[in-house]
């Protein structure tokens, strides 16, 4: 009765199908499990949540331990759009004080970024709102409050230097993986230069969640968790009191003051006027205030102390020519030149003011004689017989004082200024078709020279030190430990020690009877200074003064630059002398003298153009 099977060979078709299916499945499995990595990432995205712990940002103190920057708690309302369902929108809107449309729009924006990751829904909500929200939050699934910190400034000073903190922008996010959207980062000033020290280290807790986003425990028993590390404390070189005083003196004026401790290169005060209260650039009001400051015609955001580079140093530059002249051997302490109320060479004449004649080296500084330096400068340039060679030697001496270069320390946005090269003149006049007389205006610090107030202050510090300087910088110590890097490396000038003495004597004589700074003298203190006037084709000249004190063992070197302030003796010298008195004597003895400066308003009453010195 056995049935004779007719299609036995068809068993192979059946078996073939089974094997084909098995091979297809294994190939597919091999692809998604072994070759394609994306599923592993998706799985982590499903399960892992990274809870970030934000460290407190480091504090900033001044050199005397006075607090300059601290943190204040703020609350960001965060949302995870995926979980934000069944929300009582009306109640939420009422608490937050926003319309339903805005609420929905914000939620959509958050969703557009990521529906799974928490995004800032409302930045820095007020304490009152936070208190109201806290009671309701447990019913608002997907919403939570994240504690953040805002920078606060106990004194409204040094806005340019301290800088500000803001949300990391797209370019930072792309270039530095440390930052995530919504993170804060130092945007300018010390906040930017010392960002890595100040920010500390974010901590992270990796937790696992189930499909309903319920916490299910720590991932691998916290193996990948890290603790937040608070930012380091930064001790600035600034003297808050001096900084505040300088800002007061510069009120209603435009310009800059830079004060340096010559022995270290530490910046004691750096004022750019007009300035602004750093508290304006914090939190929700920042962008609004920022655009107001940006539109201000007086450019308060522009740091004149570091960035005002077009102005020539004026007569303050004569001290440098006096030093170089001695170094190249065309000048000594007894050299005398006559001054027929100006420097005359053939039909050329460079005017000077009325003073006795002839003068020696010391007196030439005291009286700021143009004729004297016309002679000195020409001798320097022509001492080899080839002006371009002489010029190159002269230029290298100038550069050794830090002019025409950037210091590249921790200062925000510093400009290099300019000391032209021989190439520049070759191009302008034709190769070697220029001589010392062509560029004579540089003898008295005019012409193509451009210096920033910072560079002038540093030059003064180098003179105060009689031959060297330390790159000017803003930070002394981090977490109590003194910095030790290239800021603390001595930079030698190319001038021998002994040539400084007559120049310094001359600078001291500036404050004596007949000197250009006599009016600003301090009886109790021997100061050294030099007036300068930067010719300004657009209006009244800029008033410049460099100064250090005491003459022996100097504690402070500074440069003052007052836009449209006229001659150096008019505003520069008084302000410099008040700064010195403030720093070294702590109290101001010359009340009337101080009042004149404090009350001067060069912005609403710009002075008329007058004679220059």
């Amino acid at each position: 009765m056995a049935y004779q099977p007719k299609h036995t060979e068809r068993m192979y078709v059946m078996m073939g199908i089974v094997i084909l299916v098995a091979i297809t499945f294994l190939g597919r499995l091999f692809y998604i499990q072994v070759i394609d990595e994306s599923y592993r990432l998706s799985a982590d995205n499903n399960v892992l949540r990274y809870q970030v712990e934000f460290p407190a940002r480091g504090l900033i103190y001044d050199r005397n331990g006075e607090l300059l920057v601290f943190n204040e708690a703020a609350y960001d309302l965060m949302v995870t759009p995926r979980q934000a369902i069944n929300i009582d929108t009306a109640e939420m809107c009422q608490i937050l004080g926003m319309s339903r449309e805005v609420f929905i729009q914000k939620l959509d924006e958050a969703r557009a970024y990521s529906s799974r990751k928490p995004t800032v829904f409302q930045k820095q909500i007020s304490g009152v709102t936070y208190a109201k929200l806290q009671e309701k939050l447990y019913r608002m699934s997907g919403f939570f409050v994240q504690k953040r910190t805002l920078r606060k400034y106990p004194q409204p000073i040094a806005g340019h230097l301290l800088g500000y903190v803001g949300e990391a922008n797209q370019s930072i996010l792309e270039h530095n993986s440390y930052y995530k959207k919504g993170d804060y980062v130092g945007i300018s000033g010390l906040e930017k230069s010392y960002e890595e020290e100040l920010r500390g280290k974010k901590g992270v807790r990796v937790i696992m969640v189930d499909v309903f986003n319920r916490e299910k425990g720590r991932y691998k028993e916290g193996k990948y968790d890290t603790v937040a590390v608070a930012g380091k404390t930064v001790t600035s070189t600034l003297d808050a009191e001096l900084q505040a005083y300088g800002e007061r003196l510069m009120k209603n004026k435009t310009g800059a003051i830079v004060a340096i401790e010559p022995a270290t290169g530490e910046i004691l005060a750096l004022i750019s006027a007009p300035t602004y209260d750093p508290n304006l650039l914090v939190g929700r009001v920042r962008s609004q205030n920022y655009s107001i400051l940006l539109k201000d015609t007086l450019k308060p955001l522009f740091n004149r102390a570091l960035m005002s580079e077009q102005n020539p140093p004026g007569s303050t530059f004569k001290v440098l020519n006096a030093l170089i002249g001695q170094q190249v051997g065309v000048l000594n302490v007894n050299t005398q030149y006559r001054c027929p109320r100006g420097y005359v060479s053939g039909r050329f004449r460079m005017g000077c003011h009325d003073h006795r004649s002839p003068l020696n080296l010391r007196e030439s500084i005291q009286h700021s004689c143009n004729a004297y330096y016309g002679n000195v400068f020409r001798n320097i340039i022509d001492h080899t017989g080839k002006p371009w060679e002489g010029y190159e030697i002269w230029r290298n001496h100038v550069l050794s004082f830090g002019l025409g270069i950037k210091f590249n320390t921790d200062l925000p946005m510093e400009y290099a200024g300019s000391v032209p090269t021989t190439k520049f003149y070759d191009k302008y006049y034709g190769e070697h078709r220029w001589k010392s007389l062509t560029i004579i205006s540089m003898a008295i610090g005019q012409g193509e020279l451009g210096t920033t107030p910072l560079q002038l202050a540093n030059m003064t510090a180098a003179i105060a030190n009689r031959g060297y300087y330390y790159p000017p910088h803003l930070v002394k110590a981090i977490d109590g430990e003194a910095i030790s890097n290239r800021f603390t490396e001595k930079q030698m000038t190319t001038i021998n020690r002994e040539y400084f003495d007559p120049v310094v004597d001359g600078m001291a004589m500036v404050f004596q009877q007949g000197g250009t700074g006599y009016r600003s003298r301090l009886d109790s203190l021997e100061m050294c200074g030099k007036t300068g006037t930067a010719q300004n084709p657009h209006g009244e000249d800029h008033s410049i003064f460099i100064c250090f004190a005491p003459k022996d063992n100097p504690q402070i070197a500074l440069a003052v630059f007052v836009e449209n302030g006229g001659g150096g003796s008019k505003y520069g010298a008084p302000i410099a002398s008040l700064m010195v008195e403030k720093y070294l004597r702590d109290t101001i003895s010359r009340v009337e003298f101080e009042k004149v400066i404090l009350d001067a308003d060069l912005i609403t009453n710009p002075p008329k153009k007058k004679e220059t010195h």
Partner: protein
Amino acid sequence: MRRQESIFAGIDWVTVILYLILVLIGWVNIYAAVYNEEHQSILDTSQRYGKQLIWIGLSLFVAFIIMIIDGKFYSTFAIPIYVVLLLVLVVVLVTARDVSGARSWIDIGSFKLQPSEFAKSTTALALAYYLSTLNIRMEDLSTKLVAAIILIIPAALILLQNDTGSALVFGSFALVMYREGLSGNFLLFGLAMAVIFIFSLLFTPLIMLYILGTIGVLVFFFQRKKTWRLAFSIGAALIVLMGMVYSVDYVFNEVLEPHQQVRIDVLLGKKDDLKGAGYNVNQSKIAIGSGGFAGKGFLKGTQTKYDFVPEQTTDFIFCTVGEEWGFLGAFLVIALFSALILRIVFVSERQKSSFARIYGYCVASVLLFHFIINVGMTIGLMPVIGIPLPFFSYGGSSLLGFTILLFIFVKLDGYRLQQLR
């Protein structure tokens, strides 16, 4: 009187051991999928692995019963058993409550059974009985019609219960009929239909007309004899096929439920609906894909443990295998299933009785169909059709149904040797 040990005397231990290994691995993965710290006892019957353990015991008991029943019983009572189950299906249809859209459950005390799971065995018995009758030739039209009716009645009843997946399983018996002499053209035709079905969904009828027309012209020019007759035949075929294309369009838009349309669209890549219908498949692929080569380890699968994969103990149980045991584990399971099916085909071919052989092919075809659809769906090769993975998926009816299906065959194979003695 036969001696007691003769029950196991002719048993095919390879099949039985493969079965036991699959059931064991299946249970381990159910345990892993629902594991949580609060319920660690494997006998905890409030948890699915505890319940499944009871079902495994019950299945082994039923297997034992099948083995002690006389081998002649199954062929003798094939038709009555078939009819009784059809009646049960009708009763279910009339009385059952809706359970998530399907009306396929019947309550027996506190147990719930799904008769459709048993319809596969009874239909296999009936088909085997009919096709093994003397003087029945697969080539006859009447044979094809009767066989089709045997399959269509239970399939239709199950379809009416809204359990599309289980109804589709009956299509797998086409393989059995092919083995018994059905022309291969039927299978090819079915395959062509499937291809045209898919293409019709991907392209508009106009593009389909271009594609089919181009093929027709090519066929015409590559034939040696370019007769009017040939051209006419090709033209006729084109018209028929275009009719099909339009009917597919019609069926897809008018007959299929929206959720079924979306599932097919997702599979074809026309829609990338990761939150809706595509969610299951996407999460399933993530779970399996994240397992890597060696897997995350027993109880370490985060995707399945934290419920990212839906239906993870039933239709998507393969995800736990893929995630916790990796490619190696998946390889083992696929190898075991393939081995079992190949073993059944092999054993079927050694049968002297055509009833046993045909029944064996029915078992192999049903298992193969479930295997292809279930595993294929978890790795995104097949549309989401909710049918269980045999011996693996949680569920008493399914485990019991497959155990009965398989052990009747084991019994028939053993009976062959008993007859020889």
